[in-house]
């Protein structure tokens, strides 16, 4: 790891100020991606600004039809939260499928979203549930948040503070994990909304990152049943192809995971 300097501001305003005053500064939350990346010298920020303990980024609360989770909440906390399990059990399940137990004790919701790894789990849920990503400056709808591989609508220095998830009627997440890394080779989050709409978020597979499948959504809106997906196929041209699986393999996996998720809800 190259040299860096570390600071832990006391509040959100202090963190933003430290970022603005820094050179090539980066925010640090759980660090489960950033620290390994720095160890490999693929990232070398001059300043690390630790936001993991900021009070403004903590807490899980459900009120009415919205579940709000602080950005610094760890995957283990989401997976084990009675509030999350009661409001959106599929989200608790998703969090419990991330990485391994030790990673889940440190990795955070906000960190995962800001990083927007194309194989991360949370983006599928945020997109499918139509969540709102709150920052220290504004509220960003999920549809505008993810802008491509490892890129988001966040401006330089902007901090994710919390995420508001509308509670769906029912939802399910099914994932085919890479056996070594536990990252999704295909992860599909299906949400049946209270207004009758259906949304499908797909992660791990698309070559432009997380996406919604309009075809699946149309088919399921007409007939919410596993068999409604049977005649459909996913275009391999839009899929990732790498050493872990070809585009055609991932295209098939997306369909299989979607069918399993629908079956879990039916």
């Amino acid at each position, binding site marked *: *790891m*190259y*040299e*860096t*300097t*570390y600071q*832990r501001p006391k509040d959100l305003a202090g963190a933003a100020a430290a970022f603005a005053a820094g050179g090539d500064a980066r925010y*640090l939350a759980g*660090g*489960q991606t950033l*620290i*390994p990346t*720095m*160890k*490999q010298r693929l990232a070398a920020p001059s300043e*690390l600004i*630790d936001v*993991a303990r900021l009070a403004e980024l903590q807490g899980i609360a459900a009120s009415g039809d919205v579940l709000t989770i602080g950005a610094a909440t760890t995957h*283990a906390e989401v997976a084990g939260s009675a509030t999350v399990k009661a409001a959106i059990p599929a989200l608790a399940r998703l969090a419990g499928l991330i*990485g*391994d*137990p*030790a*990673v889940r*004790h*440190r990795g955070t919701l906000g960190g995962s979203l800001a990083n927007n790894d194309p194989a991360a789990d949370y983006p599928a849920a945020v997109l499918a549930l139509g969540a709102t990503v709150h920052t220290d400056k504004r509220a960003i709808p999920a549809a505008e948040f993810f802008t491509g591989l490892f890129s988001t609508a966040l401006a330089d220095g902007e901090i994710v503070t919390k995420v508001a998830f509308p509670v769906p009627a029912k939802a399910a997440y099914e994932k085919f994990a890479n056996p*070594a*890394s*536990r990252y999704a080779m295909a992860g599909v989050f299906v949400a049946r909304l209270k207004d009758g709409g259906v949304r499908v978020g797909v992660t791990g597979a698309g070559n432009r990152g997380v996406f919604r499948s309009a075809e699946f959504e149309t088919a399921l809106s007409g007939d919410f049943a596993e068999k409604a997906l049977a005649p459909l196929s996913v275009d391999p041209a839009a899929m990732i192809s790498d050493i872990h699986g070809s585009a055609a393999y991932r295209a098939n996996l997306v369909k299989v995971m979607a069918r399993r998720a629908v079956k879990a809800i039916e």
Partner: protein
Amino acid sequence: MSKVSMTVNGEAVAAEVEDRTLLVEFLREHLHLTGTHIGCDTSQCGACLVHVDGKAMKSCSMLAVQAEAAEVVTIEGLARNGELHPMQQAFHEHHGLQCGFCTPGMIMSAIDMVRRLGPKLDEATIRHELEGNICRCTGYQNIVAAIAAGAAAMGG
């Protein structure tokens, strides 16, 4: 450089370290607690696993300064008055190791597992929960047996 202070195995420690010092480097090179191992260096093997504020974490994937004011427990902190921790004793009795390199991480992971899931752990649960710990000798059979026995012993 930053001053970092924390409690390690019940003792207050403080030191001036480079900000980039990993927690595992702080434990091994500053405190000479070399029971915590560095295996893969890519966050996958779990040999560096320690408890930070009661939770299993990979000490190779966090900075020492991130553990400021935390309670850290390493493999050296488990035995009491010369008596092995029940999980250590179970690894000993069931020969839950071959070369022994992954053992400290396995034991710390196993104790974390019991704290989260209770003392009655079936084989499938143990194998699933061990996904963050790699044994290069492929000696999982006895590790799983040791964890089941150690968990039961921890339960009383």
